[in-house]
C-alpha cells in the first residue's frame, strides 16, 4: 500500500466517522439520561436518509439551498418523530423493567420498517450528489470527493457544538446531572419528563441528521436500521456509555479500521489469500470484544459504581403447585394424542413451537435465574444447526449422531465465548454476547467453501425413519420436553439457587465462598448446549440452514419470547415462544406488513402486561394455584 493510498484511506475513514458519530452520540445521550437502550435508533437514521431523499426530490435536485435545507429538515423531522415516540410510548414505560423498554423500542423498529416500506417501497433509492460539491480534490495524485471533505469537517463541528451545549448551558448541566442521578434531579425541582423528552428529541435529531448526510454516499434502503444500530451500539460501548468524546473517538477508530480493511484488499497470509474486505463485517465487533475485555467501561467512559439498591427484589421462583403439574400433564396428553387428528401444517407449526420453546427456555435460564441478558443467543442456536448440518454432509456422520452432537457444538461455542462474557455484567455483558454472535454470523456468512456462505446449506434431511412428519413431531416433543424438564430441574437444584444468589447479590455470594464466575460460565455452557440442540432439530426439520438462523433478528426473537412470557416465571418462555411463533406464522400469512402488526402487538403487550403474559396471570391467581408458573 503506497503512502498516498494510506492518506486517502485515512481521509475516507474520517468522512465515515461523522455520520457514525452523530448516531452514536444520540444513542449515548439517550441511554445516559433515560437508561433506555434505544433499539429504534438505527430506524431514526434510516428515516433520516429516506426523508432527505424525498425532500431533495421535492425541492429539486439542482439547488444547493434545497439540498442542505432538505438535510436539516430531515434531521428536524426525525427529531419530531422522536418527541412523539417519547410522549406516546416511552413515557409510559420508564418505570417498567429495563428489558421491557428494550422490547418496546424493538417493536418500534418493526413498525418503522414497515411504515418506510409502505411509503418508499422496497427498492433502494439513490440520492443525488450534493450540488456544487460534485467534484473531487486532488491529493497526492488521488481524488477525494469534495462532499467527503465537507463531512470530515461536519463531525468535529457537531462534537464541538454538543460539548458547548452540555457544558455551557443549564440544560446541559441538568442532562449531565440526570445521567448520574435522575431521581435526585427530580427531588431538586427539575421536571424530568421534559428533560427526557428534550434529550430524546435531540438524540433522534442527531440520528436523523446522520442518516440524511449519507444520502449522496449510500442508497436509502430498508436494511439500514439493523446495520446502523449494530454499528452505533458498538461505538457507544467502545467509547464508553454516556461519553460524547468517547463516541467520537470510537467512531473514528472503527471507521478507520473499516476504511483500511477495504483499502488493503486481499493479502497473502502463509500462502493463503485472505480478503481483508471481508473482515469489515467483523472488524468492529472484534474491536468491541477486545475493548470490553480489557476496559469494560469503554475507552473514555468511567467505571459505573455498583448501585446500593439494585431495585426491587425479583419475583420468587417456587416449585410447581399440584394444579399446575396437572395442567402441564394435561397439555402433554393433548400433544401426544394430537397427531391422530391434526393435519401436517399444524404438526410442522408445533415442531417450530417446540424448538423455539426450548430456545427461549435456554435463554431464560441465562436471563432469569442467571441474571445475564444475552443479545446474541442465536449464535448457539446457529452453531448447533450448522454443526449438525456439517457433521452430516461434510463428515458423513449418520443423522442421529449429527443431531446428538449438535448440543456439543453449541456448548463448545458457549464455553469459549462464555469465558469472556462472564467477566462482565449488565448491558456490557449483553453487548459482548452480541459481538460474539456477530462474529459467528460473519464467519458463517463469508466462509463460502465450508458453510456455503450466504446460500447456507441444503439437503440436511433427517434419517429414513424420521421422514414422516408425525414421527419427527414425536421425536421433537420428546427431546424438547425432556430438555424443558431438565432446565426446570436445574433451576430448582442447588446450582440454580447459586445462580440466583449471584444474580441478586454478587458481593454477598462472593463473600460466602461462591465462585460466581465459574458458576455463570458453567450455566452459559449448559445454555449453549440446549440452544444448540434446538438449532440441530430446527435444521433437520427444515432440511436447510441459512445464515439468517444466527443473525441478530433471531436473537431478538428469543428475547421477545422470553419477555413476552415473563422473565421471572418458569412457564413464561414456553408460553412466549408459543404465542410468538404462532403470531408470526398467523400474521405473516395475512399481510405483507406483518412486521408492523407484530411490532404493534409487542408494543401493546408491553403496555398492557409489563410483567409478561405469565407474570400477569400469576399476579391474578391465588398463590396456591400460581406457584411454580
Amino acid at each position, binding site marked *: 500500500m503506497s503512502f498516498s493510498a494510506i492518506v486517502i484511506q485515512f481521509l475516507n475513514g474520517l468522512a465515515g466517522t461523522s455520520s457514525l458519530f452523530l448516531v452514536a452520540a444520540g444513542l449515548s445521550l439517550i441511554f445516559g439520561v433515560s437508561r433506555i437502550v434505544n433499539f429504534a435508533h438505527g430506524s431514526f437514521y434510516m428515516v433520516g436518509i429516506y426523508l432527505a431523499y424525498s425532500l431533495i426530490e421535492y425541492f429539486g435536485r439542482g439547488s444547493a439551498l434545497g439540498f442542505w435545507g432538505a438535510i436539516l429538515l430531515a434531521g428536524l423531522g426525525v427529531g419530531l418523530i422522536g418527541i412523539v415516540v417519547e410522549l406516546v410510548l416511552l413515557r409510559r414505560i420508564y418505570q417498567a423493567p429495563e428489558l421491557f423498554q428494550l422490547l418496546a423500542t424493538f417493536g418500534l423498529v418493526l413498525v418503522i420498517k414497515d411504515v418506510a416500506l409502505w411509503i418508499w417501497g422496497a427498492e433502494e433509492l439513490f440520492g443525488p450528489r450534493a450540488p456544487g460539491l460534485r467534484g473531487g480534490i486532488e491529493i497526492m495524485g488521488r481524488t477525494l470527493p469534495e462532499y467527503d471533505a465537507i463531512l470530515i469537517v461536519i463531525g468535529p463541528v457537531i462534537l464541538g457544538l454538543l460539548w458547548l451545549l452540555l457544558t455551557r448551558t443549564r440544560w446541559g448541566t441538568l442532562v449531565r*446531572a440526570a445521567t448520574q442521578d435522575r431521581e435526585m434531579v427530580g427531588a*431538586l425541582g*427539575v421536571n424530568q419528563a421534559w428533560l427526557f423528552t428534550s434529550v430524546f428529541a435531540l438524540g433522534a435529531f442527531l440520528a436523523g441528521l446522520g442518516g440524511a448526510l449519507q444520502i449522496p454516499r449510500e442508497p436509502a434502503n430498508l436494511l439500514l436500521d439493523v446495520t446502523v444500530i449494530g454499528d452505533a451500539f458498538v461505538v457507544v460501548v467502545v467509547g464508553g456509555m454516556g461519553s460524547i468524546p468517547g463516541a467520537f473517538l470510537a467512531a473514528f477508530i472503527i471507521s478507520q479500521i473499516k476504511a483500511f480493511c477495504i483499502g488493503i484488499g486481499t493479502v497473502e497470509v502463509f500462502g493463503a489469500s485472505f480478503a481483508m474486505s471481508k473482515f469489515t463485517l467483523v472488524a468492529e465487533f472484534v474491536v468491541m470484544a477486545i475493548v470490553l475485555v480489557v476496559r469494560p467501561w469503554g475507552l473514555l467512559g468511567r467505571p459505573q459504581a455498583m448501585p446500593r439498591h439494585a431495585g426491587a427484589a425479583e419475583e420468587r421462583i417456587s416449585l410447581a403447585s399440584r394444579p399446575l403439574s396437572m395442567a402441564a400433564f394435561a397439555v402433554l396428553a393433548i400433544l401426544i394424542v394430537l397427531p391422530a387428528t391434526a393435519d401436517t401444517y399444524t404438526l410442522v407449526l408445533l415442531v417450530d413451537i417446540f424448538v423455539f420453546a426450548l430456545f427461549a427456555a435456554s435463554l431464560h435460564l441465562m436471563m432469569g435465574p442467571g441474571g445475564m441478558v444475552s443479545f446474541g443467543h442465536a449464535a448457539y442456536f446457529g452453531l448447533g444447526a450448522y454443526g449438525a448440518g456439517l457433521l452430516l454432509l461434510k463428515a458423513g456422520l449418520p443423522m442421529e449422531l449429527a443431531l446428538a452432537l449438535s448440543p456439543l457444538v453449541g456448548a463448545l461455542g458457549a464455553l469459549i465465548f462464555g469465558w469472556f462474557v462472564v467477566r462482565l455484567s449488565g448491558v456490557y455483558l449483553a453487548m459482548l454476547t452480541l459481538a460474539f454472535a456477530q462474529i459467528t454470523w460473519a464467519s458463517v456468512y463469508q466462509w463460502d467453501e465450508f458453510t456455503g456462505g450466504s446460500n447456507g446449506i441444503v439437503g440436511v434431511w433427517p434419517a429414513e425413519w424420521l421422514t414422516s412428519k408425525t414421527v419427527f413431531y414425536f421425536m421433537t416433543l420428546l427431546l424438547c420436553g425432556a430438555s424443558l424438564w431438565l432446565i426446570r430441574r436445574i433451576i430448582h437444584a442447588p446450582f440454580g439457587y447459586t445462580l440466583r444468589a449471584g444474580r441478586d447479590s454478587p458481593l454477598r455470594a462472593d463473600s460466602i465462598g461462591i465462585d460466581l464466575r465459574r458458576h455463570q460460565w458453567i450455566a452459559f455452557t449448559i445454555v449453549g448446549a440446549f440452544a444448540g440442540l434446538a438449532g440441530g432439530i430446527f435444521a433437520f426439520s427444515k432440511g436447510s440452514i441459512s445464515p439468517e438462523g444466527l443473525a441478530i433478528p433471531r436473537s431478538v426473537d428469543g428475547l421477545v419470547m422470553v419477555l413476552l412470557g415473563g422473565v421471572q416465571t418458569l412457564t413464561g418462555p414456553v408460553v412466549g415462544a408459543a404465542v410468538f411463533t404462532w403470531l408470526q406464522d398467523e400474521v405473516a400469512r395475512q399481510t405483507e406488513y406483518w412486521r408492523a402488526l407484530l411490532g404493534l402487538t409487542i408494543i401493546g403487550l408491553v403496555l398492557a402486561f409489563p410483567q409478561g403474559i405469565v407474570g400477569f396471570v400469576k399476579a391474578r391467581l391465588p398463590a396456591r394455584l400460581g406457584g411454580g408458573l
Partner: protein
Amino acid sequence: MLRVAGLHAYYGQAHILSDVSLEGNAGEVVVLLGRNGAGKSTTLKSIIGLVRPAQGEITFEGRRIDGLSAHRIARLGLGYVPEERRIFTDLTVMENLEVGRQPSRAGAPAWSPDRLFRLFPNLGEMRNRPGGRMSGGEQQMLTIARTLMGNPRCILLDEPSEGLAPVIVEQMAATIRELKQEGLSVVLSEQNLHFAASVADRATIIEKGRIRYTGSMAELQANDAIRAQYLTV
C-alpha cells in the same frame, strides 16, 4: 407548615411505616429521632415523594402533597437533603448549585451562590472542583447548599451529622441554627441525640416504623426512661 398524618409505607411485602404522624411548624426545627432502620429516611422520602406511601395524608402549607411527583413537591418550596448526599460527582461545585437553582419565592430566604459561600466558606474556595473530589464534610455542605438554591421555605435534612468528624458536626449545628434564624423551617432525622438537642425545638421518636413519643426537646432531655427505651443502643 408541614403535617404528616397516618402514614403507611411498604417496600414490597415489608411494612416499613405504620401510622406515622409528624408535625413541623413555621420557623421551627423538629427532629425525628430513631435507631438505624427505624423508618426515619422512609418518612422523609415519603414526604418529598420519592417513596409512594400506601396510605396517609401529607400536607404542606395547607396543601395536599401526597401523590404528587417529587419535582412538583420541591417546587412548592420543600427542600430535601438526602442521607447519602447524592452529590453529582462529575459536576463542579458551581454546577451542582446550578442544578438546584429555582426562582425565588415569597416568604422564603433567597439564596445565591455568593450568599451560600458566606454560609459555607469552604465551598467558595473550590467552586470549580468536581463533586467527586471533595471530602465527606464538604460534600455534606454542598448537598445542603444545593437544596438551598431552590429557595425552600422548609427543608428536610436526613441525618446530616452521619459520618462527619466532631468538629464538622459542630459546624453543622451552627449552620442549622443559622438557617432557622433566616426563617427556614427544618425537619431533620437523627440518631445523634446530643447533636439533635443542640438544634431542635421539638422531637418525635420513631421505632420500628411507629411513632413512640412526641414532645418538646427539653421534655425529652428530662425524660431518662423514654431515652433509655428507644434511643440508647
